[in-house]
């Protein structure tokens, strides 16, 4: 009963930012298609909304926006909810369960909306010769796109995006809980230290001490994890994202189970 209320509250609070996000996406799309029309794109114009290795002009990997948005949502999913829900007599376990179910629901909902946008976008761009509307999945697994049929592509794309969204929103959630638990000094140290080490420390060590071994290992690992070592196999990517989701969801629970309400 309380879990249901927890989900209801947390879902309700996400409605507005999701609506604003898609309103902005809608405006960008309308603006883009208007520019196509005004510039008579498809007969020699060169308006670029997004460009990639895919030739021509058009919209490419717009779901990346959804992925970033969900990561930011994850970053904003703890403090306020934790206070509000503990104020209303909910245990940490119920807050956490409600949050994870909310993530699953929001990611599924956004994947469906993104898929609809992709299908409609492809339909519209078909009226503008020379333009394209390419989804994130097609962009990442371009090789797969050539082999699989259209239906399989949509199913794979749907599943991959769902797993990716879930992984990112959960990483964001873990980061925000970890920062909530830290004291001021730890927050500053981790907030500055980790990005500095990752950006400069690792690349410095890799260049001068390991002569590119770290970089190559990282690339190989990522390549394996996302299925590029097996002829662009998206199921590797899905499993990797689900593992990331599982690990960070677990870490989030371990971090929040002893969290206290702070002033």
């Amino acid at each position, binding site marked *: 009963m309380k879990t249901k*209320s927890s989900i209801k509250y947390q879902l309700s609070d996400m409605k507005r930012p999701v609506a604003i996000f898609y309103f902005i996406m809608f405006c960008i799309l309308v603006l883009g298609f208007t520019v196509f029309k005004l510039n008579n794109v498809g007969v020699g114009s060169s308006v670029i909304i997004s460009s990639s290795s895919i030739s021509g002009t058009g919209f490419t990997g717009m779901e990346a926006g959804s992925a970033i948005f969900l990561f930011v949502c994850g970053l904003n999913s703890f403090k306020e909810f934790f*206070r509000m829900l503990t104020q*209303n007599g*909910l*245990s940490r376990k119920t807050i956490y369960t409600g949050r994870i179910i909310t993530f699953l629901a929001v990611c599924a909902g956004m994947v469906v909306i993104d898929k609809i946008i992709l299908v409609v976008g492809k339909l519209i761009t078909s009226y503008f010769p020379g333009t394209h509307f390419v989804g994130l999945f097609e962009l990442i697994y371009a090789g797969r796109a050539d082999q699989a049929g259209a239906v399989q592509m949509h199913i794979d794309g749907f599943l991959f995006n769902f797993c990716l969204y879930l992984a990112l929103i959960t990483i964001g959630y873990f980061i925000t809980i970890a920062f909530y638990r830290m004291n001021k000094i730890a927050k500053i140290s981790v907030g500055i230290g980790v990005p500095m080490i990752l950006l400069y420390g690792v690349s410095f060590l890799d260049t001068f001490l390991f002569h590119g071994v770290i970089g190559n290992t990282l690339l190989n690992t990522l390549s394996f994890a996302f299925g590029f070592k097996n002829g662009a196999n998206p199921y590797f990517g899905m499993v990797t994202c689900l593992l990331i989701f599982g690990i960070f969801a677990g870490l989030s629970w371990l971090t929040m189970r002893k969290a*206290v309400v702070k002033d």
Partner: protein
Amino acid sequence: MSGIEVRNTSKNYGSVHALKAVSVHFEENKIYGLLGRNGAGKSTLLNAITGRIFADSGEVLVDGEATLENDHALGKIYMMSEKNYYPEGMKIRDVFKWTKEFYPDFDTSYANKLAERFELNTDKKVRTLSTGYSSIFKLITALSTNARYILLDEPVLGLDANHRDLFYRILIEKYSENPCTVIISTHLIEEAAGVIEHVVIIKDGQVIKDESREELMSKGYTATGAASVIDKFTADKNLLGADSLGGLKTAYILGTLDRAAVPDGIEISKMDLQRLFIQLTNA
């Protein structure tokens, strides 16, 4: 056992012992005054009861059920905190709506009636409220939940005299119609004394008094007179403390009064709760 039972609960913040093996039983359908000086451990105790913080040792039971990560037990308690834990951008009517979701017995029409009596605009957002109105909206929410145990931490913070008076009247009305356990943690003892039935005094993280107000008040008295007469009178008595003004002295004495033994020139009066509290917690 019904009620809220705090058993051997301790909490340390570094070297500060906020609670030292506190054991106290808040019975059903009573209004408690949880009194203590700043930093005595009142809020820590209330936060430990509601699971907002974790005690280092001990346990809290509500109607025999441990509250630790227990939605059912926690759902019987509503705690109004000194701080605001509602989203800043939330409107008051939405606070009522969501509280109803978590406390199904929340009486929305009663909350709206109270809002009218306090002249609280429910279309306002939490962040726009003054300190006084912030307390008012939290008080209204607390009183409308119909929770069995209502914990009020500094309920009248920032309220003007009229609103404080209105709150105490509403609390009595509510309690008469629908008895529940109310624990009031406050510094304004004199005002709250009229509604408190049972007193729990906490000092340096320890419960030093846990008695009914009547019982507590009957255990002490005040003697006023010339300093020399008072000194002689109190020499063999359990003196809590004394105030002097010019040659006049007022002594606060713990013990039963033997009226026949009161010498001339000494005026005896009842000790008020605030005075007793000051004397008990000053030492």
